[in-house]
């Protein structure tokens, strides 16, 4: 069975879900996989969430859009409300404990509940919560080695923020090592 | 291009002396225009200017829609037809694709100032290095004499049968003055074709409208007040009279902008 992975990443605009989506797609490509990344914009953004879908596969990718994902990264509550019911059986969701109440989690699903904002703050920059969450996703899904994603940072983070690459890298690692 | 007339009937016969010849930039096809129409004069002037500037071999004519659609049947230059009103946009594409060519449009008032107002204004505003020739005879000629944006107030046309009114139709549009306001326009003037004097002035102005293009100064524009005896229901002489007595008072002749001249105000008004 060829290796297939998909993930919907969602959060408030500004939480950087498009950045980690791009990063994962770039890293997957550098790892030699087929990848697709698609942002969903328009009406859906008005609910306060931005989201994107990334698909990784060893075969050419069919649908870049996924209604029932194998995994999600949800950084805020509206995103959990929207995507938790769609998560596939046996899937996993990475849930931002800093902004989402634990009581909302569906106990029948596999969740990694980590305080992404709090952990990012400890690393000195609360904006790195997205990277923390992606790190946790990498651990939970085993989709790609952490190092491949860290290496891809330089192709995704704009030159203007190049000095922050090491901090992003540390945030990925912190999320990866969360238990 | 050979300058000798191929048609023997047009060459001087025994005992005759050639005192006037058509421009070699025009071919020998008989014009399809009505008697007294000024397109023939305007064609000749454009052809003479192209010949004098020695640019016919690199000229590209963008024809329009109206009586002037068939301009390209008479000019010995490369030509492309354009949809109604779009000549200045087509000329923009030609100019960008062939920077070394001399590009000109030849349009009537309906084509250029109504349906093609946007394309004309914006090509002018971008300073496209083209020359646009507007033949203003205050009516849609080919379709049968309907009102155009330049129709005079009170003028009876097939769509203003009691005469054009300000209240219902607005007033005549002054394209040369409008274009003169735009930064990309290097030259904008209005001339008339109703008298020998005016025709001579028009030739000089036309030359200037091509000069600014060739010098890379910007958009060259000339509006020529012309007669349409058929749709005006006048004989050619009365039509000429109408230009001088009714049109020129509304459409003053003159240079409204000349990027190469100090001031650039009205010169031969």
């Amino acid at each position, binding site marked *: 069975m060829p290796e297939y992975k998909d993930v919907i990443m969602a959060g408030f605009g500004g939480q950087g879900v498009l950045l980690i989506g*791009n990063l994962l*797609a*770039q890293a997957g*490509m550098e790892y030699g996989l*087929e*990848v*697709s*990344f*698609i*942002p969903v*914009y*328009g009406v*859906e953004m008005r609910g306060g969430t931005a989201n994107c879908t990334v698909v990784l596969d060893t075969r*050419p*990718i*069919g*649908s*870049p*859009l*996924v*209604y*029932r994902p194998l995994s999600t990264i949800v950084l805020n509550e509206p995103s959990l409300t929207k995507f938790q019911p769609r998560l596939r059986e046996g899937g996993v969701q990475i849930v931002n404990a800093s902004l989402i109440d634990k009581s909302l989690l569906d106990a029948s699903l596999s969740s990694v509940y980590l305080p992404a904002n709090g952990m990012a703050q400890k690393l000195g920059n609360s904006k790195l919560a997205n990277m923390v969450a992606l790190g946790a996703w990498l651990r939970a899904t085993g989709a790609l080695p952490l190092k491949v994603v860290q290496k891809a940072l330089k*192709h995704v983070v704009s030159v203007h923020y190049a000095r922050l690459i090491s901090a992003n890298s540390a945030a990925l690692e912190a999320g990866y090592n969360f238990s | *291009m050979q300058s000798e007339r191929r048609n023997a009937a047009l060459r001087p016969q025994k005992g005759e002396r050639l005192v006037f010849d058509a421009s070699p930039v025009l071919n020998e096809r008989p014009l399809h225009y009505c008697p007294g129409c000024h397109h023939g004069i305007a064609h000749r002037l454009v052809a003479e200017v192209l010949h004098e500037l020695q640019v*016919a*071999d*690199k*000229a*590209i004519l*963008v*024809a329009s829609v109206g009586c002037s*659609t068939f301009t*390209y049947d008479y*000019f*010995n*230059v*490369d*030509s*492309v*037809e*354009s*949809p109604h009103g*779009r000549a200045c*946009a*087509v*000329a*923009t*594409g*030609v*100019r*960008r*694709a*062939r920077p*070394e*060519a001399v590009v000109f449009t030849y349009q009537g008032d309906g084509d250029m100032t109504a349906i093609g107002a*946007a*394309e004309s*204004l*914006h090509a002018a505003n*971008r300073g496209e290095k083209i020359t646009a020739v507007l033949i203003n005879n205050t009516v849609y000629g080919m379709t049968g004499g309907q009102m155009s944006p330049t129709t005079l107030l009170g003028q009876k046309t097939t769509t203003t049968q009691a005469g054009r009114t300000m209240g219902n139709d607005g007033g005549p549009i002054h394209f040369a003055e409008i274009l003169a306001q735009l930064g990309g326009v290097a030259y904008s003037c209005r001339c008339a074709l109703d008298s020998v004097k005016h025709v001579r002035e028009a030739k000089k102005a036309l030359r200037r409208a091509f000069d600014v293009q060739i010098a890379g100064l910007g958009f060259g524009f000339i509006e020529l007040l012309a007669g349409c005896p058929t749709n005006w229901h006048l004989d050619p002489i009365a039509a000429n009279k109408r230009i001088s007595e009714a049109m020129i008072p509304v459409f003053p002749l003159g240079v409204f902008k000349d990027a190469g001249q100090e001031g650039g105000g009205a010169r031969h008004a």
Partner: protein
Amino acid sequence: MKKERVLMKGNEAVAYGALDAGCLCYFGYPITPQNEIPEMLSALLPDAGGHFVQAESEVGAINMLIGAGACGVAAMVSSSSCGISLMQEGLSFMAGSHIPGVVVNMTRGGPGLGDISPSQGDYFQAVKGGGHGDHRNLVLAPSTVQECYDFMFRAFALAFTYANPVMILGDAVVGQIKEPARRIPPKGALSPGKLRLLSRGWRIEGFGARGKNGQPRLLKSVYLAEGALAERNRILIQKYADMRKEARCEIEDTDDAELVVVAFGSIGRIARSVIRELRAGGRRIGLFRPLTLYPFPDAALRELAPGRRFLVLEQNAGQMVEDVRLALEGRARVFWHGVMPGLFIGANELEAPILAAFGEN
């Protein structure tokens, strides 16, 4: 040219493809969801010795394309649905005058202003010659970012081979998706020099460019003399008949298929995901994806007719299904399922209609 895979959007691939294929002029007017194309080319073309003009309208843009195309220069416009409607007059003129040019349509939802989500509602407008008179555009339908890149080469080659407008028909998914693509000219790509050669017999440039005995040329679509327009139309019809050999399609898993899904562009690739899953469950279903919508690959489709049923999936109210029925000439049963514009659809939405046509549910 870069040989390694680079992650890029479909719209970006269109821009790179145009540039690498030798496009020298771009004319356009902003409209979502295709703005990356003019934005990128405004930066890239001048450096490549080309021209970028932001037109005053789509009407202006298509007429600039007429001018540049008439000069035998590789040129393009891009827009979306309502903007393409405004270009239809120009497309008719181009077809009638034998003028080449490439038009990219990243379709949005309609009718009217509609929305900016994916849609295939412009199939008719692209394929049936949305403008006046009998005219046809060659139409290519990419579904991946690599195809966006590759099809630009093909579009310019076809435009110059047939002196005819070529439309790339994409949508918001195809334009906005990011995937790896390689910037390598695809097989059959024509060099800019070869494109110039193809235009030698008709382009305008000033007769002096054709030597001492150069004669004036005229490109036009008006034919008023008795019989002249009939003759012109006969030439055009012959040209459209010649184009038939350019029909292309992608066929997957049809050998044993009882049901063949026919879908193009983004819906074509989304359908592939469902078909893979359903085949894994033992259902014999195949995919027929037209790569050219005009000419429609009808002969290849007709070959599949014996013993099979067909399901047309498209994101509109039923457009391509007409061409599928015409192609099959009543030899097979044809089902249709339309997804409405205004939705980003995933593979799951296509499962039920496929199963229904397969004979389950």
